[in-house]
């Protein structure tokens, strides 16, 4: 499962019930890109 990153303090965050950064309380989180390689069609 891919993790999230807080938009304010940039800490790595795990989401459980609340969508909120446990370090700074900010509620905007970015989903981090997975490690896998992605193939897309150029259309």
């Amino acid at each position: 499962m891919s993790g999230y990153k807080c938009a304010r303090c940039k800490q790595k965050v795990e989401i459980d019930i609340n969508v909120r950064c446990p370090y700074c309380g900010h509620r905007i989180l970015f989903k981090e890109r997975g490690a896998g390689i992605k193939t897309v069609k150029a259309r």
Partner: protein
Amino acid sequence: MDIAFSRLESEVAKFVLSESIPAFANSFRRTMISDVPKLAIEDVIIYDNNSALFDEMLAHRLGLIPLKTNLSEYKKKSECSCGGEGCSLCESVYTLSAEGPCLVKSSDLIAQNPDAAPVTGEIPIVKLEKGQKVVLEAHAEINTGLEHAKWQSTLACGYKTYPVITIGDNCDACGHCADECARHVLKLAKKSVEVIDGKLIDCSMCKLCEKACVGSGWEDAAIRISSDNTKFVFVVESDGSLPVKEIMTYALTDLKDKSDSLVDVLTNISGAL
């Protein structure tokens, strides 16, 4: 049938197709647009992308970059001996690796085969801020505009019928028509207006000159605009992937092959009956 070029460069051509019919002219235009194959990026393998553009958008922009194409070097994937898996005969591979801050351009696409590089290196792909990174591999293949517009080798490709300007004996050389003409096709001579040498091809048949002339009634108009349905003025522009001459030659050969196969089918049907 005859073709007379008034302009022929590697990326633009203007010519008159004469002794023809509208059906052929339109077939020729449609074949040049949709049946001439060229290289374009189809599959993009993204290793890393934390730019502002999401993967699909980035891939779409890469697909639209015109690539230099040597039709004798590549063949369609469906016709390749590899069975469509992708090999050096049907596929061209590119790599892109860039880290911000910078503007990633088509010149950053490194082609495995330099003969299949992007036509120009100045096409912007994505703008990267500090810490943003794009690492990808792109696979280009041959196909036609019938499948997707990114495989269309012509940009502007169209025709108009050849204009015919008839100036009657009742022209009083008032010059209203010459003043009205937006393309500056007409000039005032001593006793009447006349078409400037070599400018007839520029006439857009807007009939503004006719309207200026008929101030005293339609029957009295001294200038009449009509078109010759056996002559067509073509303008063909290439995106740079193929020279215009090659596009035209390929399209005409393709049309001939299709006509021949149609004749064969009709012959077989009539033979069966």
